[in-house]
């Protein structure tokens, strides 16, 4: 693809400086997303997927956090360390975010309408009336019934699924070109999750919004995403288009992860499980981060850090010595 990506991250390193020293939560992460594309970032707790998204939004709490290195290019312009005033103009307007827990991200003291109108008027110079109309239209677009009445309701009066729809409406109200969704359906029941996923896919196709979907659930990714980035302990271990990743995973971690998902369609006598525990960020500093849990690991894996090697098919990259090209092999 020759198109210019709408958002591109190059060599991002975000660290937290604690009493025990520097903890790299995100370590040399590069990724991109095109207009109208849905990119999934998958990983387990502590893999750095949320820190990546907060870095894009310029929301890393500092101190202790800091973007140590790397560029985040939005429409070709670097937005790392932008002055807060400029960042504010982008945040919510060009790049918006939805969080996991809709209850804690809505202000309980203000009505839904109030919060939606604030979101518009922060970025656009429009009358209250126009903002009101736009808000109602947005609430209808995300499939909420009786939108006009809803404008006067408070968050506690809504159910979890409705709150998440309001969050999506709020994120989409300024028509951002990139939407980051951090575990948007984890707190919801399956039937509601399905409704929300369909809604996001619809918005993605209708409005051509690029969506970065951050989740731990490979089922959710398979349902809606076009491309996937798999993260482990702060690093990208594999990236591929959705069909390749599920059909032909290369990295032992991706393979293990896919194999350990309990399958709804059949009962297995013994579930596959990856031995060991998910490492704490920064606890492994040498060699491949996955080596201690990897069944295929050999000596080199513990000494050297593998790079992301390209695989046969397009845009498929994997960070594993098993798939290193000949010239890199010892």
């Amino acid at each position, binding site marked *: 693809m020759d198109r210019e990506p709408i958002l591109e991250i190059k060599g991002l390193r975000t660290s937290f400086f604690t009493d025990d020293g520097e903890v790299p939560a995100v370590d040399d992460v590069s990724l991109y997303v095109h207009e109208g594309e849905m990119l999934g970032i998958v990983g*387990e707790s502590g893999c750095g997927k949320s820190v990546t998204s907060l870095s894009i939004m310029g929301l890393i709490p500092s101190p202790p956090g800091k973007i140590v290195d790397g560029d985040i290019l939005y429409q070709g312009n670097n937005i790392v360390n932008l002055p807060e005033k400029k960042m504010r103009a982008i945040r919510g307007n060009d790049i918006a975010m939805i969080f996991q827990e809709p209850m804690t991200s809505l202000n309980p003291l203000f009505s839904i309408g109030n919060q939606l109108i604030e979101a518009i008027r922060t970025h656009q110079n429009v009358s209250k009336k126009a903002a009101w109309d736009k808000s109602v239209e947005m609430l209808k677009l995300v499939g909420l019934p009786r939108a006009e009445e809803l404008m006067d309701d408070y968050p506690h009066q809504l159910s979890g699924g409705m709150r998440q729809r309001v969050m999506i409406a709020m994120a989409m109200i300024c028509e951002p070109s990139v939407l980051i969704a951090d575990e948007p359906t984890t707190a919801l029941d399956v039937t509601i999750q399905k409704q929300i996923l369909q809604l996001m896919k619809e918005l993605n196709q209708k409005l051509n919004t690029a969506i970065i979907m951050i989740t731990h659930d490979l089922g959710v990714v398979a349902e809606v995403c076009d491309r996937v980035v798999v993260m482990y302990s702060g690093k990208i271990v594999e990236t591929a288009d959705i069909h390749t990743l599920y059909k032909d995973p290369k990295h032992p971690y991706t393979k293990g992860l896919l194999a350990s998902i309990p399958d*709804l369609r059949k009962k297995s006598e013994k579930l596959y*499980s990856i031995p060991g525990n998910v490492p704490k960020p920064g606890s492994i500093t040498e060699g491949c981060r996955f080596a201690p849990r990897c069944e295929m690991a050999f000596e080199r894996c513990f000494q050297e850090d593998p790079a992301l090697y390209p695989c046969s098919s397009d845009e498929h990259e994997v960070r594993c010595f098993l798939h290193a090209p000949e010239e890199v092999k010892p």
Partner: protein
Amino acid sequence: MSTLVEVKNLKKYFPITGGVLDRKIGDIKAVDNISFTIRKGETLGLVGESGSGKSTTGRLLLRLLEATDGSITFEEKEVTKLSTKEVKALREDMQLIFQDPFASLNPRHTVEKILEEPLIVHKKGTKEERKKMVRKMIEVVGLDSYHLKRYPHQFSGGQRQRIGIARALMTQPKLIIADEPVSALDVSIQSQVLNLLKDLQEEFKLTYLFIAHDLSVVRQISDRVGVMYLGTLVELTDAEKLYEKPLHPYTEALLSAVPIPDPEVKSQSEDVLGGEIPSPSNPPKGCVFHTRCKACMEICKKVRPEFKEMEPGHYVACHLYEEDMQH
């Protein structure tokens, strides 16, 4: 297989109070007239969305909550009528594994103390014997005896859940009620814990009531599965049957909503179950599911369907199948 637990017409209503005098103005029908049995040595899965009453059911069994009506029989004992003293004895045979491995272990106690406590409470063994049992149990769940001197915060989520399981096993219970035991864990750790639960069941001849919202997880561990909706059981049968040939429209909808980790089989049905679970303080008249049901008929809005055995061992509460039987 003999029956270990028999639940009959169990109800739990939580009162809603309001007004100046704090009078009762209504009920939240958390569990509304459910009946089922748990057989010795099996795993009965209980699935449902939030607010369906599955956790309340588990707590009623343990007498952590008092039932409003109905009976629970555990090995010929009527659980709802036991005295406080007898309840304590009952809990030796019935233990609970909690969802949140971070909140359910006392942060100020060492693992050794956490595991020894159930034995002290139930006055089992001498100090020496207790220590020995604790050392044995920690190895059974896949940890080492040097872990005993540590505190909960020094463990990962999966390890903590292992400690929670070890604690539940200390009194050698017959029935374990596991309330969302793996939902707080990472995928790669989830299967470790599920495998452990399976192995322990075989080793100690345990019976599980496995409560979860994740249908894929429930399939892996359960022999039979019950589906709950808004305080009622809508379907109960062998796991195999339930997943392959569900009868109740809600079970069908629930199964089709689970995202499949394979992009090639992108959701077979595009039908999404519309709407949301109604409030349990004001459940719909007739069948509680009729407001969201695709196959809703006139009768569904008026009469609540009975929970009946449609085929041997297959219980369903749905008017669709009652009609079939009449013709």
